[in-house]
């Protein structure tokens, strides 16, 4: 685990991270996770387990109470405001509460994530069209986001998250409002991004999307990691997410 080897390989490194929200809500306790570049990681756990809180730490929406959060080899607590901006342009986030702008069209909502890094209008248009057709929303391109059904909004959120071709994608409950068919479209899109090199962390409670995959699954419970196969994952083996791993189904 020398710096030289680690730097290009590890995307996310959480070291003994804890997060307390103001009065005394312990959202995360003593979490250590390493995610390699090109990996897909599923984060599961009951409602309130701390999945969203963990993702928030990764994009520095919150700072950890204890421990270190490193993304792409940089300690987030030490980054300047300018560097954080640059970093966020390289992270695509599908928020659990969508954060769409209801009075902008679908196209504008997706474009916004590319505009912040000053992409050309032509590129933006092409990419938007492609994503929408992949997610089955081609006919909604000029509809206001506020007039979409919830499931359509969720897909727009996902499209916005991946639009800028980020190196890291954080998807928070990306299929909560989607039927199984549409869920398939979304997972295909994620897999495509992953093939192109993106690291993906998906927080979800939807068993169907991780049941039959070979990807790693980490389960949180009340802020603690209860199931992880961290040790099994060969940190130095690089971009090869073909580990065999059978998730246990979560309690019924």
């Amino acid at each position, binding site marked *: 685990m020398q710096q030289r080897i680690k730097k290009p390989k590890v995307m996310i490194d959480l070291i003994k991270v804890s997060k307390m929200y103001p009065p005394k809500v312990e959202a995360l306790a003593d979490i250590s996770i390493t995610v390699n570049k090109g990996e897909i990681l599923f984060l599961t756990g009951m409602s309130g387990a701390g999945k969203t809180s963990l993702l928030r730490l990764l994009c520095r929406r919150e700072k950890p109470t204890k421990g270190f959060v490193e993304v792409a080899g940089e300690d987030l607590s030490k980054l300047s405001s300018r560097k954080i901006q640059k970093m966020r342009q390289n992270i695509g*986030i599908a928020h659990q509460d969508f954060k769409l702008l209801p009075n902008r069209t679908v196209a504008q909502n997706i474009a916004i994530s590319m*505009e912040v890094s*000053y992409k050309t209008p032509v590129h933006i248009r092409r990419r938007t069209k492609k994503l929408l057709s992949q997610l089955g929303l081609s006919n909604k391109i000029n509809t206001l986001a506020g007039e979409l059904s919830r499931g359509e909004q969720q897909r727009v959120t996902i499209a916005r998250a991946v639009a800028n071709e980020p190196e890291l994608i954080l998807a928070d409950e990306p299929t909560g409002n989607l039927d199984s068919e549409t869920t398939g479209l979304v997972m295909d899109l994620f897999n495509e991004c992953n093939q192109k090199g993106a690291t993906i962390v998906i927080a979800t409670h939807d068993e169907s999307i991780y049941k039959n995959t070979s990807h790693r699954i980490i389960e949180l419970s009340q802020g603690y990691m209860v199931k992880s196969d961290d040790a099994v994952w060969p940190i130095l083996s690089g971009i090869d997410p073909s580990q065999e791993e059978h998730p246990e189904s979560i309690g019924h």
Partner: protein
Amino acid sequence: MYFLFTIIKQTTRNFLLTWSSQIFTLLTVGLSVLIFSFFYLVYTNVIDGAQQLGDDLRLTVYLDEQPGKELQEEYRYKIKKFDRVDKIVFVSSKVAYDRFAEQLGDDKDILNDMPQDFLPPAIEVYPIKTLDTLVRIKQFSDYLQTLPGVLKVQYGREWVERFYSFIQLLRIIVILSGSLLILTTTFTVAHTIRLTILGRKKELELLRLLGASSTYIRLPFFLEGALQGLLGSASGIGALYLLYNWMKLRLAGTTMVNLFSFSFFEPPIILAIIILSTVLCASGSFSSTRKFLHI
């Protein structure tokens, strides 16, 4: 780099999306500038007008004998040394007699027996009517009293005092209104901008999370604020100009126009007002976005 293009697009979009709020803000700025500049105009014109009321204001210096050319020059010199004056008129006994006769009208025959120089010669001093001079009028009178050959200095003392007080009062009121208005205007505009930006909190937070740079987020607001300040103040001053012309037109028949000289702002002042509003709105809008930068 599509930097400029994106920023301008963003600004235009904001304007289009929130046009009703924008129009309200514009109206607020416009009305505020209108009220404020109206006041400023009143300040300059009413105080002028009030001072014209005091046109009769003069000090009459009675002399013991008719001064010669040289002595007149000396008086002139000494008077001017004390204070700037508008006009100095020497009234000989003869002129005083004629004036008196005229005042008596048909009864002037009764003066026939009198020597033409029975009234003393005098100097009429018309001081410049700045507020300073008005304050110093008593000192001026005292000073004139000390000149050689002066019998008596006369002026409408009570009236001058009253007049001076009135102008003073006007001045206090105008300044007070002015400060109140500036206070209210600044407050209103700041408040309006604050509320408008608060209405777009969600968008700003999102931009922040998407990694937008501070420039990307704030420049459109800055431009928007500047545009609002510019358009608002320009329309405010425009409205004032219309009002001014309408008033002038309405008063055209009356004596008022002949008596008082109304004047609109000079171009530099108009420019100053517009630039100031623009800068204020732009920086207000700019700084209102500050709190959304730390997400």
